[in-house]
């Protein structure tokens, strides 16, 4: 309601109409209830049927444990509430047929005499040996399930491997975004609320190149990453560096990033509307199955690329000069500057790499989540949760936290409704902040 164009004069609901609506609703409910009661009473009163016909109770006994082999020689006993009792045995093909004469109009109870079952053959676990058929038909079909249940019922436990797989997938792609956020935080101290929009940027650029311009998907993703890198550079040189130069405080910058998030999100919505957009290729790839897990080659490739990129960045941070310089700036910018490191250049690089990573993450997420203007906003909270759980500012923490959050989100759908799966991640975030505020891999210094 908030996002609609404001109305001129907005008339409020007349009281009378509300009351009438309420009355009607109540009346409808009452009527439905009445019908239900009537139905129950009718059925409980007992069947009415043509009194002239004999009734036939019949069925087939098949053993599902032995490939639906018929079970012969089993005694079936039918007793009537009028006092009559009729028995018969199942034939060689497992069928049984018992006639209840027309003059016996009582309610029937059909019992399978278990002692007459052959050795090794049992009723299915949990099934009763007695049936009380209802209804007014003269032909009463009764079934007794024999043998183990062969139906493929998927228990909750069976879904766990698939959830783990999905969670890992999601978590690894999420860590692309989390890594970027962590790097920016580590070197500049900025909690960038607009980071989610950088993720969306990657997805939208991929869509643009792939569907609108018709480029193949791999090229489109590359295009999106390059453009994201440029966008990251623009963010830093156009906005954040001037603010740092002015000496703007961190909290003020955080609020600026919130305004930026608003701005970008609405720009995206301006161009894409509320539509859910998809790429041209590989949107619904063919699934293969292994054990309890369905997977696709596309997802495996995406994960492989993500892992490669993550490893590359981590190694670069560890072993290259630029990487060491980045870590120095993250530790103590003043000290780093005094040893001759060009802090501004390092921060610029961090923004370029971080935004490129976010863009790549967005491009990948666009496969499974579809491209909307809200993509970034949805994952932003998860990225925050991931970095907080793993430890704000820690590289390994960002990745570990993302995987944990991804797994948590997917596994939680087994116990809570899927609309609430993000809520579960939020609760995890709150719990971690309560118990271990520096995150799993953050250093145990004061965080407040």
């Amino acid at each position: 309601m908030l996002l609609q164009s404001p109305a001129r004069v907005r008339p409020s609901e007349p009281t009378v109409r509300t009351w009438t609506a309420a009355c009607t609703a109540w009346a409808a409910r009452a009527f439905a209830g009445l019908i239900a009661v009537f139905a129950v009473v009718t059925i409980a009163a007992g069947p009415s049927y043509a009194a002239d016909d004999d009734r036939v109770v019949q069925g087939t006994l098949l053993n599902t444990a032995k490939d639906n082999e018929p079970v012969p020689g089993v005694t079936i006993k039918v007793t009537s509430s009028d006092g009559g009792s009729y028995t018969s045995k199942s034939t060689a093909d497992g069928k049984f047929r018992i006639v209840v004469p027309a003059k016996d109009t009582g309610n029937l109870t059909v019992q399978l005499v278990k002692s007459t079952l052959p050795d090794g053959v049992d009723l299915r676990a949990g099934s009763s040996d007695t049936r009380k058929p209802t209804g007014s038909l003269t032909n009463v079909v009764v079934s007794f399930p024999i043998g183990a249940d062969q139906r493929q019922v998927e228990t909750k436990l069976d879904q766990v491997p698939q959830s783990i797989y999905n969670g890992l997938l999601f978590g690894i792609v999420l860590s692309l975004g989390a890594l970027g956020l962590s790097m920016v935080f580590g070197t500049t101290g900025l909690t960038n609320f607009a980071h989610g929009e950088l993720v969306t940027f990657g997805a939208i650029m991929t869509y643009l190149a792939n569907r609108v311009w018709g480029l193949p998907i791999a090229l489109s993703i590359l295009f999106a990453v390059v453009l994201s890198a440029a966008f990251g550079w623009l963010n830093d040189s156009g906005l954040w560096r001037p603010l740092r130069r002015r000496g703007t405080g961190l909290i003020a910058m955080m609020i600026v990033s919130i305004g930026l998030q608003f701005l970008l999100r609405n720009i995206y919505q301006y161009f894409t509307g509320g539509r859910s957009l998809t790429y041209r290729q590989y949107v619904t790839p063919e699934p293969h199955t292994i054990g309890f897990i369905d997977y696709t080659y596309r997802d495996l490739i995406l994960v492989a690329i993500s892992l490669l990129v993550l490893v590359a960045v981590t190694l670069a941070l560890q072993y290259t000069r630029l990487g060491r310089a980045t870590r120095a700036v993250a530790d103590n910018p003043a000290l780093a500057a005094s040893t001759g490191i060009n802090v501004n250049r390092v921060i610029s690089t961090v923004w370029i790499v971080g935004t490129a990573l976010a863009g790549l993450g967005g491009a990948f997420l666009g496969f499974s989540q579809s491209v909307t203007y809200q993509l970034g906003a949805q994952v932003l909270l998860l990225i925050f949760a991931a970095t907080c759980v793993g430890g704000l500012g820690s590289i390994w923490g960002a990745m570990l936290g993302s995987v944990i959050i991804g797994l948590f989100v997917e596994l939680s759908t087994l116990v809570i409704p899927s609309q609430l799966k993000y809520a579960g991640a939020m609760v995890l975030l709150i719990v971690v902040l309560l118990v271990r505020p520096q995150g799993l891999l953050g250093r145990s210094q004061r965080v407040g």
Partner: protein
Amino acid sequence: MLDALQGAFHDGLGYLAISYCLAAIGLNVQFGYAGLLNFGQAAFLSIGGYMMGAAIATGGWPTLAAMALAIGCSVVLALILGIPTLRLRADYLAIVTIAVAEVLRLTFGTSFRKYFHGKDGVTGFTDGFRSLNPFDYEGTVLTFSANDMWILIVGWIVVALTLVLVWLLMRSPWGRLLRAIREDEVAVRSLGKNAYSYKMQALILGGVIGCFGGFIGALGQASVQADLFNLDFAFIAFTMLILGGAGRVLSPVVGAVIFWAALSFIGSILTDLSAQSGISSFMDANQASNVRLMLVGLTLMLLMIFRPQGIFGDRKEIALDAR
């Protein structure tokens, strides 16, 4: 143009503006005076509207009792927000408040359908309130119908009372202590004051004021939906507060009214423009709405960069550089 002005007038004084006012006043206590970054203010309004509405509609409670329940829930929410985060850094509080607000929004929208009715939201709780309405006229007076007028009067009285309370508090040693905590919590602790407790009090007070905003919003609209009080709402309330000038008693109200009226005005202009033949080729009505919100984002950025003290604030007092 006249229509747009009329619309701005109507919206600027209407119940939604009032609920924004109250949200901003609450935010002022939490952020302007105590320095707590609460981005989940929308959650307090949600709780206010939903709890009151559900208690009346589903439970049949009398209006005042339902409001008391909602206030109690707000206090509990403030405790839930505060206990893990008040000992941590400012951005942790920001993240957690957003997270909690989202959890609440999702919960209200999808769970406990018996009480909250999922996406449809809660309706049918305004009878008790409206039965007290002394106005009984057809049509509109000054663009407001009888029901509108009633919620308006009640709402602005609540705003006035809240402002008086905040003013009194801020002139007292309690307010002084809060402002000191905003600047330097360690110094305050070294003087023997329990800073944590005071921050919690500020959080609770701001939350309860927000809860009242939820009442007004829900009663005015005669319904509550989960998506009404979402993250965008919280950010807009924040922008209003910054515009007015955080840390001054009147500024949240001024900021809210000006901002909301301006937004309405610009929205009308843009929607009209989008209907013009020349413009409609690249901007339709929905996109006009987006442009409106882009301006919100831009305003917040420009405010923070160039005039963080807003209209009434004192640059020297803005503690935004402190942490």
